[in-house]
């Protein structure tokens, strides 16, 4: 966990990060391993013969400190996966800055980008789809090492190490992906991402396709690997209960923008943005007593189209606190209402004093009205 949290849209910390970048990696505590500023991704699509623009990601800024897990959460279409892919330049961002250890990734040519990718890898949701069905596990694990020019002897030793890291056995090496269960396949996906010893993993819904008992095993593995290898994670997920088990910080996205960001405890215990509050209140808790005491904020209406997002605050069309100002003035993502410097909210009317009832098992049930 980092000692210093820099708030995404805080100008001062922006400059501090810039200065730190100039001084190279002198102070790893202050300098984030990953620094994203105003990331924008627009897709052009044809709709009824016209060209329309899908605003998938509209100005996302975030920092990830070394060894830290930053969770990017939100519902389908919020832009969390697109953000993850833009960070690795698997999709080319429309504009913005992505810096990895002070190096601007967006300015790199193909060869330098490949070198930089040694240090940052991705794990996908569905290992069935992301592992080549006609390669054995040995081939799948050797491939990234060979691409990065490791000699055969090194490849062999590293493949054995990787098996141990993800708790697979030597006898698995000559099997094909279809011979494995979903959980084992995801272990292979993780081992493949770890092959070239990256410092940062983008995990895109890594446990969503798995049964709960298997989910827990993979979560346990990810937590162990983070500790053993000092990895930083960008953990992309829709399941807020899963996220709580490993996130240091959480950024909540809605329709292409981060609406709230903060330390995990700040987000889970004292969410301020109405969307975060609705989202948390909708997650069922596996405890009938707790469930009976909760009240849900059931959102009305539908998610607006990213082709034509609402003016001002993008959440205002479904928000019970919205006023005229919300339609004209976009709220900045900044600390508000005396929240801590690490906790930023993009809302003109933040607060936890509405009709929501949130529950925290460690502090009993809080009933607010």
């Amino acid at each position, binding site marked *: 966990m980092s000692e210093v949290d820099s708030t995404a849209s805080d100008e001062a910390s922006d400059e501090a990060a810039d200065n730190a970048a100039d001084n190279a990696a002198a102070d790893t505590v202050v300098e984030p391993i990953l620094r994203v500023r105003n990331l924008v991704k627009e897709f052009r699509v044809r709709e009824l013969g016209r060209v329309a623009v899908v605003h998938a990601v509209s100005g996302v800024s975030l920092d990830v400190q070394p060894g830290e897990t930053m969770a990017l959460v939100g519902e389908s279409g919020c832009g969390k996966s697109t953000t993850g892919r833009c960070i690795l330049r698997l999709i080319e961002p429309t504009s913005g800055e992505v810096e990895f250890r002070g190096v601007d990734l967006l300015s790199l040519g193909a060869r330098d980008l490949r070198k930089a990718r040694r240090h940052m890898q991705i794990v996908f949701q569905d290992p069935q789809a992301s592992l080549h069905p006609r390669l054995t596990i040995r081939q799948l694990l050797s491939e990234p090492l060979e691409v990065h020019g490791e000699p055969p002897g090194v490849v062999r030793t590293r493949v054995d190490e990787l098996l141990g890291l993800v708790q697979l056995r030597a006898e698995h090496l000559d099997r094909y992906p279809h011979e494995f269960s979903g959980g084992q396949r995801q272990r292979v996906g993780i081992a493949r991402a770890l092959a070239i010893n990256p410092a940062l993993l983008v995990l895109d819904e890594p446990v969503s396709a798995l049964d*709960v008992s298997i989910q*827990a095993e993979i979560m346990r593995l990810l937590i162990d690997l983070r500790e053993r290898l000092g990895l930083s994670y960008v953990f992309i997920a829709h399941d*807020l*209960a899963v996220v709580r088990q490993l996130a240091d910080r959480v950024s909540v996205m809605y329709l292409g923008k981060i609406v709230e960001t903060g330390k995990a*405890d700040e987000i889970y215990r004292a969410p301020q943005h109405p969307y975060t509050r609705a989202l948390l209140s*909708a*997650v069922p*808790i596996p*405890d009938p007593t707790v*469930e009976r005491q909760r009240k849900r904020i059931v959102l009305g209406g539908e998610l607006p189209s990213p082709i034509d997002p609402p003016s001002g605050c993008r959440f205002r069309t479904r928000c019970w606190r919205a006023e005229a100002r919300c339609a004209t003035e976009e709220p900045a993502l900044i600390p508000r209402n005396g929240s801590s410097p690490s906790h930023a909210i993009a809302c003109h009317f933040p607060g936890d004093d509405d009709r929501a009832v949130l529950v925290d098992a460690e502090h009993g049930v809080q009933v607010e009205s």
Partner: protein
Amino acid sequence: MNGSVNEPLTGSLSDAAGDHRTPILEIEDLRVTFPSSSGPVPAVRGVSLDVYPGEAVAVVGESGSGKSVTMLALLGLLRNATVTGSARYRGTNLIGLDPATLRTIRGAKVSMIFQDPMTSLNPVLTIGKQLSMVMRSHQPDLSKSAARLRAIELLEQVAISQPARRCDSYPHELSGGMRQRVMIAMAISNYPEVLIADEPTTALDVTVQAQIMELLSDLRVQRNLALILITHDLGVVAGATDRVAVMYAGKVVETGAVDPLFEDPGHPYTRGLLECLPRLDVRHEVQASIPGIPATPQSLPPGCPFAPRCKHVEPACLEVEPVLAPHGATMAACSVMTRVPS
């Protein structure tokens, strides 16, 4: 296939909704076997479950536990499967019922909604047309114009805005949440008494899930519907149901009212599931408390199917498959946990 579960599961469920009433659906010793090149595959191995009017029962289990197959079997929706046992709706056994009579019940008195509304809706027909077809196949006297009016009314009931306009929309023009509302409208269009919902919110976002679960609860109360909720999500179960049946390897391994089942589960599988479940309200050390992988019907071990993954396993577990027996306020199929101290 020994150790069938023959006793009705309501015996110990004193606080379940209305023991004094007659169940609307009585499933007894239901078994489903699929043929395969490597021999018969027992997907469901003796499931018994009573469902009362107006109550919500959850059938919980991981993939391959047989929870969906059980429901598909009783509605006669499985091909090439051997189905035995009985499933009586108001006394009429649906298993082995002639197709014509079954059609008068299925989709009318007992209806079902599925996980993925996109694959259940016909992509080339409007929503209104599909609703109308479902109604007119069970209510032949209903005119086309009356069916359309009724379709609009139903869309309104499931909280779809501008229902008259939506009637002329095609499925791809609707969001996932709206499509599932359309499926629910279709399922309730012939005034069913039992609604089987198979993972109705699994493909949906959590805020949409909250909307759909609220809708299902409202309909249940308004119409005194019996709701059978098939799910893998114990969070949804905790908030939306009265009773729970936990399935593993084609059998009900634990059943009881929702409170005791969560507070004091008797079966090690139920306990493990609850332990490894991440919770929103607490940051705890994630436990991988169920090692190994779920038993599949193709490779059932002798004795208790959960024994290879169980930390309480005893030699006897590997030989004799346990039957449901009282454990506190639930019934659990575990010979270790339900043993009476001598």
